[in-house]
């Protein structure tokens, strides 16, 4: 189970702006460790965001998304919406976190 995300979501005039920080090393598979060995690729591949159970955003990531990925998007929604953000990575690790729209 991955580390917790930070999710901030605020509604303004019917638009909810969502900002997400995910904790993940996002290894490209091209870095070498101190011993000169390649560190294997390990990265989040898919992210899904649901509001009230309906998907409002999704992303496919490659290795070139920065470490500790950040996402910002906007959807039509309301204060009090229940958000569920989920990701999976190349090791099969996953993480889901919930947040309420303020």
């Amino acid at each position: 189970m991955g580390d917790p995300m930070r999710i901030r979501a605020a509604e303004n005039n019917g638009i909810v702006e969502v900002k997400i920080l995910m904790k993940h090393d996002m290894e490209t598979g091209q870095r070498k460790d101190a011993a000169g060995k390649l560190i294997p690729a390990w990265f989040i591949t898919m992210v899904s965001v649901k509001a009230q159970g309906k998907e409002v955003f999704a992303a496919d990531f490659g290795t070139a998304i920065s470490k500790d990925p950040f996402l910002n998007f906007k959807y039509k929604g309301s204060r009090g919406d229940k958000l569920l953000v989920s990701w999976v990575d190349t090791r099969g690790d996953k993480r889901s976190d919930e947040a309420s729209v303020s």
Partner: protein
Amino acid sequence: MNLQRREVLKYTAVFGLMASAGLISSAQAEEWNKAAFEGKTIEDVFSVFGAGSPDKSSAVILNVPEIAENGAVVPVSISTTLKAQQLAILVEKNPNALVAQFFIPTGTEPFVTTRIKMAQTSNVYALVKADGKWSMAAKEIKVTLGGCGG
């Protein structure tokens, strides 16, 4: 996940494992677009997407800094006045051009901000798919390594 995202080549390997472990559904296992992410050049990626030669469009807005102090974290923001269902970020001189794809259901704005890695100074492309048609915008971002402190 949304079945409309399934314009992709199917593959097994890594995701077969996840699906068999019940961690993601079989439908999801087939969705990560391996061929697109393995594309070396922007043309490779355009070809996998079936985007042909996308038109440069002023309706696609790519908001990026001209200079990135560090190539490990480069902020990129895409927005468009087109009714887009799909957005993508490509970096011409990265080992693999496609950085990420984003899927915009109805009710969501065609807008995203994220942070990407850039191997070196390069053109960065915002690709947008709206009503089956692909458009794009491009900008150069200079990548500096910066000094020892700061």
